Structure formats: structure tokens, C-alpha cells
């Protein structure tokens, strides 16, 4: 693995290795001194073309706990409107002697483009921190980490992902990675929010949340992931009203009760309470939302470590 641009870049062994490394990294969160030396002298730039609080700070903390120098560059606002090409922006940042770029962009494929342009520079690795409606591979890794902690091996496990699949980079990366790890995935959404060609993906799809959660449609459920629904989708005619969406696709207390004892509820955040997830569900013991955030730091440490320090070195924790 040279870059992490897509969840498809990691095979099962690589994914397992990242998650195992993350487990060891996770241990330092309970320490008083949260610092490991392996990336000392390395420079990581968080190049964010789109607002982000949680992903950016998660990467920043991950880099710092590995002793890297982490710089945040906010390049918000389309470079098109500024007259600078994306290529210029990427090469300018890369020319500063950066070891790794962590990039978020509001356009699908932007990070892949940047990885191509900086291939001749000092940059050794490019990490996709979310590109448009395409992918968000570290989110999928942290979700898999969280699931593994709750459920053990994911082989044969059935994960239900509910919400705006069409516009979700989280869903795309999760479908790829969970399949790689041997899990089964069912996507649930109204027909307007399922992407074209979804029938070719390695998952099942359903318009009926109740039939899916009850296990009648695709078998017993082992985990439920609720996705954020952007309110502006309503004006695009993707659904009628928030009320109707919540009634049909929200994780209500009643639906929560349909789930077996062991089933965790995930959400990549930020949550729209009352829309895709009820407060009862969000605050229930099943909710692993904060575990996901914690896992985010450990998984990103593992990714940065494996990309920059080399997979062959053992972590001295």
C-alpha cells in the first residue's frame, strides 16, 4: 500500500494488519503521556478543501501522537474560482518537503488526481480523508475496528447501512471494506437515495427498513449504521418531508427494540437527532458513536504508521 485512496486499496491481510496495529495504538489513549516516536521528523499536511472538524482533528491528533509534525492547510473555496488549478495547489504544498498529504476535497476523485500529480515529489503517501461522494476509507476502517471490538471476527456478519447512499462516501468505502473482511452488507434507502448501478455492488439493497431490521428480508442483523441525511436533499426532491423520512427510515425506539441484544448502532456523525436517528437510539447502550470517534484516532495512527514507517517495523509500544 503506497497511498490510501480507496477502501479497495487494502486487501484482507492489509486491512487486518491495520486493525491489529490500531489495537496496539489504541492502548496509548489511556496513558498519561500519549506520544510514540516512530514518525519523529516526518511532516504531515492535512490539506482540507472542505470544512471538517472531526476528521481533521482526528488526523491531527493521530499524527502528533506518532511525533510527526502536523500542519493544517485549509484550502477552502474552489480553487477554480481563485484562478489556481488544483494541480498548482497540490504541487505548491508538496514542494515544501512534505512526507504525507491527508486530503479532503468536495469533488469525487480529487485525491486520486492529487496523488498522481505529486508522485514525483518528496510526498511518500497520500491519504484520502473524504473525496466528494466517492470514498472515505479511514472512516470505513474505523467502523470496521469498532465493529470488530463489539462482534469479533466480521466473517459472515450482517451489517445494515441506512440512509443517503447516493451521496455517501462512507457507504461506498464501507461496502468495499466490509466485503473484503467477509461481512455481508445490506443498504437501506428510499429508491431516490440509492445510487445507479448499486445492483452491481457487493451488497443487498432494500427500500424497507422494517423488513431488513427484523431479519425477514436478508437474515439476522449484527450491526446497524445510520448515515447522516442532509436536509438540502429535500429540496432536490429525494424525499418528501423530514417527518416522512423519519417515519420510514429513522431509527426510532420501536425499531431499536427490533434488534437483537448484541447489535451495535453506528453513526459517522454529525447526527441529525430526530431525523435519521432518535435520541433514544443515539443515547442507548447500543450506540457506539463515541467508540467510533476514539477508534478514529487509533486507526489513523495505524494508517499513517504503516504508510510512513513501513509495515515491516514492529510498533514499539
Amino acid at each position: 500500500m503506497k497511498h490510501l485512496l480507496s477502501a479497495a486499496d487494502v486487501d484482507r491481510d492489509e486491512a487486518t494488519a491495520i486493525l491489529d496495529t490500531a489495537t496496539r495504538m489504541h492502548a496509548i489513549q489511556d496513558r498519561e503521556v500519549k506520544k510514540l516516536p516512530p514518525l519523529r521528523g516526518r511532516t504531515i499536511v492535512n490539506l482540507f478543501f472542505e470544512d471538517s472538524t472531526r476528521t481533521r482533528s482526528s488526523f491531527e491528533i493521530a499524527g502528533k501522537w506518532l511525533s510527526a509534525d502536523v500542519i493544517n492547510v485549509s484550502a477552502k473555496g474552489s480553487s477554480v474560482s481563485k484562478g489556481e488549478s488544483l494541480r498548482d495547489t497540490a504541487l505548491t504544498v508538496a514542494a515544501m518537503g512534505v512526507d504525507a498529504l491527508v486530503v479532503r476535497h468536495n469533488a469525487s476523485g480529487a485525491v486520486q488526481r492529487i496523488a498522481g500529480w505529486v508522485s514525483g515529489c518528496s510526498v511518500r503517501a497520500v491519504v484520502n480523508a473524504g473525496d466528494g461522494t466517492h470514498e472515505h476509507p479511514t472512516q470505513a476502517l474505523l467502523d470496521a475496528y469498532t465493529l470488530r471490538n463489539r462482534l469479533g471476527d466480521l466473517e459472515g456478519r450482517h451489517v445494515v447501512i441506512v440512509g443517503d447512499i447516493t451521496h455517501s462516501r462512507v457507504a461506498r468505502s464501507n461496502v468495499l471494506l466490509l466485503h473484503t473482511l467477509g461481512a455481508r452488507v445490506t443498504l437501506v434507502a428510499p429508491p431516490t437515495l440509492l445510487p445507479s448501478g448499486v445492483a452491481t455492488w457487493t451488497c443487498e439493497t432494500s427500500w424497507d427498513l422494517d423488513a431488513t431490521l427484523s431479519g425477514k428480508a436478508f437474515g439476522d442483523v449484527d450491526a446497524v449504521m445510520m448515515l447522516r441525511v442532509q436536509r438540502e436533499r429535500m429540496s432536490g426532491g429525494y424525499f418528501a418531508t423530514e417527518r416522512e423520512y423519519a417515519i420510514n427510515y429513522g431509527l426510532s425506539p420501536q425499531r431499536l427494540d427490533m434488534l437483537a441484544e448484541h447489535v451495535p448502532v453506528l453513526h459517522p456523525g454529525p447526527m441529525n437527532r430526530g431525523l435519521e436517528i432518535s435520541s433514544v437510539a443515539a443515547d442507548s447502550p447500543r450506540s457506539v458513536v463515541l467508540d467510533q470517534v476514539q477508534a478514529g484516532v487509533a486507526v489513523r495512527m495505524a494508517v499513517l504508521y504503516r504508510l510512513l514507517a513501513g509495515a515491516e517495523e514492529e510498533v514499539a509500544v
Partner: protein
Amino acid sequence: MSILLAGAKPLGGKAVDVLIEDGTITGVGAKLAASNRPDERIDCSGLVLLPGFVDLHTHLREPGREDAETVATGSAAAALGGYTAVHAMANTNPVADTAEIVEQVARLGERAGLVDVRPVGAVSKGLAGQELAEIGTMARSAAAVRIFSDDGRCVHDSRLMRRAFEYAKAFGGVIAQHAQDPRLADGSACCHEGEVSGRLGLAGWPAVAEESIVARDVMLAEHTGSRLHVCHVSTGGTVEVIRWAKARGIAVTAEVTPHHLLLTCDLLSSYDPVFKVNPPLRPDSDVQALRAALADGTLDAVATDHAPHAPHDKDHAFGDAAFGMLGLQTALGVVAESMVSTGLLNWAGVADRMSVRPAAIGGLVTHGRPIEPGEPANLTLIDPDGSYTVDADALASKSRNTPFAGRTLPAAVVATFLRGRATVRDGKLVDGIPA
């Protein structure tokens, strides 16, 4: 000035000698060489002689974006591609929506002198889709505009389209429609809506956004008794609509671009905007339907939609980059690969789709003519067994956005003659690439 093309095969038929004198073909037959003493004799053995190509759809970018292309550099690319006439689209800055602008473009074309540059006039003022542009004045101007198009944008307002159809009849005009329902495919739509757009997370451009507009427009053309030309047909569904309309006797013609005959949307997996074009590349099933329709004549013409862009308009994320790709210098090779090598068209068919029919659609009387004595010598000499390896940096266009870079395409343009004068010889511009 006389030139003898010795042993050329008109339309790929039997080898004959063709004599050109003072811009006109004066002799076609065996052994003309013996009875004439031409100023110049060109050995054409093995070469095919075609009427000079006519492009119905060229973006020359002047006025406004002379950094991407000028009338002169675009004309040079056209000549190298075997073209003797091009239609310059109206989406310049300022928009070609008045007699002054179309006359300026025509004058720039005359000055370059490499191909006949025929300006296309806008249908609506400023391409805004609100009010009719001065279609009549442009038609009666020195540029004698015959094709009107808001290309780049769709005339989506049904009432405006109806009026344009009716109004253009008085001037013998044809409305060339960029068919894209903006409610089904807005400006962000950049990838054929299907498996690829879903996987890549790119905004979908569904086939129905084109097909529904073409269906409406053929009905409007029938209702108004006017002429419709459909730009850059990209889907099999549109082909079916046009086939139906033609069978019904509706006055509709249609074009297909070279890139839609060869490339598919699978190329977008690279996210390289060199493959970003409007309408988007489609799946192979559409490519095959377009080839079949061009072969059977449902699609009348190959038109390049040559769309030069400066690097800084392409060096962005896919969704942010400009739409369009170069086409003039690669058109013959792409048509040869997709249509001739596959047995779908012979060289006479290529002449029909790249010269005869586009000239008729554009109302050009001196292009797309038979290769016979008395006809104007607007001709293209090609090597059917040659090949052309596309080197983006060597193109005559000011821009480099060819999707065919590095490809070797069959057939090669050897020479192009505009009114008997060679603009291209041995595959090179006679006067070099314009500055």
C-alpha cells in the same frame, strides 16, 4: 496553377488521374498525365481521394479565449484533419449573437485562409435561453449564417424553441440543438448515469435527459414544419427517436462525434478530466448503437465538437474541470478505426458522412461535391493504409486536451486542398503552424 493527382482513388474506387486547374477539377480519368503538363504532379498511388471534410461542430474560442484556440490555430488543426470547412460554434465571449460577431469570425477565417469558417449564430441572446437572438440579421449578414445553436446549453424552454423553429424558416435556417434537459442533467452532471457514476460518486447525466429533449424537438419540428439538427447524439435511445422521426418524414438531421464512436464511460475511472465531455461518454452498448446508426444513415454526419481548453481549465478535480476534448486532427483516424476497420462504412460512406451530408446540412454549395470535372477542388487525400500516432504536444491546436494521446489510429491525411490550393502536404501544413 495546375496540379495533377496521379493514380488517386476517388472515394476508394478505381485509380484515376485528377487534374486541378485554378481551383477547379478539370479532368478525371485514366492517362491524363500524358496529355497534360501540370505545374505539379503528385504521385497518389495507393491513396484515396475524398471531398474535403466539413465539420458541423467546432469550437474555435475566438473571440474570448484566444489562449485556448484561435480561428487560425483551429483552422490549422482542421486542415491537418482533412477539413476544408468548419462551423464555428456561437459560445464565444462575446457570444456570436449579432451580425457583427459572426462577420468578425468569418473575416478571421478568411484571413487564416486554411478552411472555410462558417459561423454558427446563437439561438438566444447571450445563450441565456430567454429571448431570440437576431437570427434574421445574422442570416442576412456577410457571414450568411444558416445554422443556429445555443450549443453548450440546451434551448430548454419549449416556447422559445418553437419560436426559433418558426422564425428560422424565413431565412432557411436550421436549429442545431444541444439536447440536455437542465432539470434532469444540470451543470454538475458530468458522468453517464449508470454503474460508473454510482461507483465513482460523480453526478449522473442520464440518457433520458438527452432523449426527452430530442423527442420534444422532433415533435416541435413537425408541428412548425421546420428543420432540426441534433448535435452530438450520444445514446441509443436518441437514435431510436430520430429513426422514428425520419420514418415519419420529419425534417431532422443528426450528428455524432468521433469520441462517442470510440470511447466509453469506463475511462472515467481514472478521474482524468481529459475524458470529461458534454454529453458524457456512454457505455459500449450506446457506442455500438451509434456506430450502427451512422452506418445506416440514421445519423447523418460525424461532427467533432472540437473543444480546446487551456491546461488550467482541466487541471482540477473531475467535477470542477471544463467539459470538452479536441477532435479535428483525430477525426479521420477515429472514424477509420470505429467505422471503416469494422466494415461498417467504406470510403464512399466516410465521404458521405464527413463531407457530403454535413455540407448539405450547413448549406455549403462548394463543399461535399462529387469528384468530377467542373467541381470546386475542395479535396482531401488520405492514405488508407497509413496510421497516425497521436502526439498531444505536436497538435496544431493551441490546446492539448486530446483523449487519444498515445493512440495509433488507422489512416492518415496526406494532403488537403482548399479551392485547389494545398493547405496540407505530406501530412504537414504547407505554411507551418500559425502563431
